[in-house]
């Protein structure tokens, strides 16, 4: 049993892949928090708590939901939007929810605009620029999501959540698997449920890099 835990960074000059540190992905019906397998229900509560605690809770939708390339994708996009609206309704003054797309995976020249997008090759730029202290990836192809999650853990203190349609992500601090419209909406319900019960860390947000 590994002692390694997937925690907010900045972790290392080159942080390891959590899978290589003995972290396993959850089975269906499960999720993980910090690399420890938990029942999915517990992960909803923790993700909602992290969102409500954050100064800049942010959703990063990727190409698989940004594009209406099939019916299900468009429905998921609607659910993502609804989750964002819920978040906006439930936060307290001073908290600033954001919805920033990861439209593609290309290295962009001369540089990305961190106000409008996040890029897997340097996701830290968008995190730092917007002082994002909690984020959720959804609809990003798994390989690219893992690259981003690892770089974020390496250089920022942002808390990362993955709402993954496949097997989940060990490189996030909290990960769901088999994401569906229902699961996205259920997270919204948990946010509503916990509204007003979580104290936002309005002054102590640590979002700058240490290196």
């Amino acid at each position: 049993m590994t002692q390694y835990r997937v925690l907010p960074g900045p972790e290392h000059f080159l942080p390891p892949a959590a899978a290589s540190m003995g972290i396993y992905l959850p089975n269906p019906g499960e999720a993980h928090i910090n690399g420890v397998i938990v029942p999915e229900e517990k992960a909803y509560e923790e993700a909602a708590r992290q969102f409500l605690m954050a100064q800049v809770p942010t959703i990063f939708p990727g190409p698989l939901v940004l594009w209406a390339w099939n019916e299900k994708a468009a429905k998921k996009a609607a659910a993502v939007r609804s989750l964002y609206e819920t978040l906006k309704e439930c936060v307290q003054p001073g908290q600033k929810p954001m919805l920033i797309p990861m439209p593609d995976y290309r290295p962009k020249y001369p540089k990305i605009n961190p106000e409008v997008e996040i890029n897997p090759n340097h996701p830290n730029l968008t995190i730092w620029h917007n002082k994002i202290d909690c984020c959720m990836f959804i609809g990003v192809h798994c390989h690219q999501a893992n690259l981003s999650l690892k770089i974020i853990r390496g250089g920022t203190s942002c808390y990362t959540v993955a709402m993954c349609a496949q097997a989940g992500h060990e490189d996030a601090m909290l990960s769901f698997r088999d994401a569906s419209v229902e699961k996205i909406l259920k997270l919204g319900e948990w946010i509503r449920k916990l509204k007003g019960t979580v104290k936002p860390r309005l002054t102590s947000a640590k979002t700058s890099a240490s290196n």
Partner: protein
Amino acid sequence: MAEIKSHIGTQNKKGQTYTDPWKMMHEAPRNPSFYTGSEVIKEALRRASCDVMIAYPITPQSEAAALIGELFAEGYIGDYFRGESEFAVMSQCAGAAFGGARVFTTTAGPGTMRAMENFPMWAGARLPIQMIVTCRGINSPLSIQPDTIEISYLLNTGMLVWHAETAQDFFDWILKGFMVSEEPEVHLPLALCCDGFFVTHTKDVVNLTPTDMCLPPYDPYRSPVPCMDMECPPVRMMRDPFIMKSNYISYATHASWQQEIWAAVERSRKHTIKWINGLIDTENTDAEVVIVASGTAVSQGREAIRLLEDEGVRCGLIKVKSLRPWPGEEIREATKNAKHIFVPEFNVTGWLAKEIKATIPNSERVHAGPHVCGGMTMPPEIIVSEIKTALGLRSESLAGRGS
């Protein structure tokens, strides 16, 4: 994320039923058949719902590659052709996998080496291609004979590497291999290796699954990277862009990418254990003497153990089935009682012994040998002799024999 159509229970154009892979492999009736290893490869492919197979002749895999051509002619494979060299073939396989196909190929020895540039590319691009490697010599002077040296070159490519002992392993693992390597969190190529001739050209009784059952088709929309078909989604996507900048973050991206490949190898562990029933098989590992081997060296080891038992020496056996993922913990556990660990190998450098030495405590327990190479057989007597000599028992000298 994509519309995953459930094909299970429906039929393909050959009238085979797409079957739940677990049920097909573990619950369906088996039919004992007397086949060569090459024929077994063909029979596995008949049941694999393979989209594209690309062939090239090189001994000892030529027969298998040609037999799969017959399957194509019969309508069991989506497309099939002979490429112009192994380098080209492996790139053609990559092209087909980028396009969302389930892809299969076979190679051997110098062919593996010629194609080598492709393998880290396959892994880096997360292409779940299955490649059979029927191992043979690679050095000059040319040898077509069995020799497992080429496996050592595959171990650091990022591919999954399994080493089959028997034709039965081969049949089961070809089909199970697709299931492991196509898992979205794994999605890596698999080199399924065997010892050339010993497995490919000998006949054995192999229990086959029914011919009217086949694996469900590959679903490229569960891939961890976008499939290149202008569908998923049909926008600005390049496989795989590299970052031509000289700064910390561009290097970090490339480093993170490499780590992700090896993370995927780690993730395959869970599935490999499930499908091939553990990364290793063990027998009597409470004994003080243990043989650790892979491929047909396992069979020779088993025979040596029988001979040793006749002489009152008790010896355990560890069959290493998967080399990537590497069963480090399993081998540590299985060798914890051993005072002497013997690693018989069909290659001159002893790569398996080196891997084991790097894995276990007190590695001076490992006797790297016996080795044969260049096509020599490994009579069980030489394993017996090696063990007895190390144990300080009197052993007959086994001279080289020739006619």
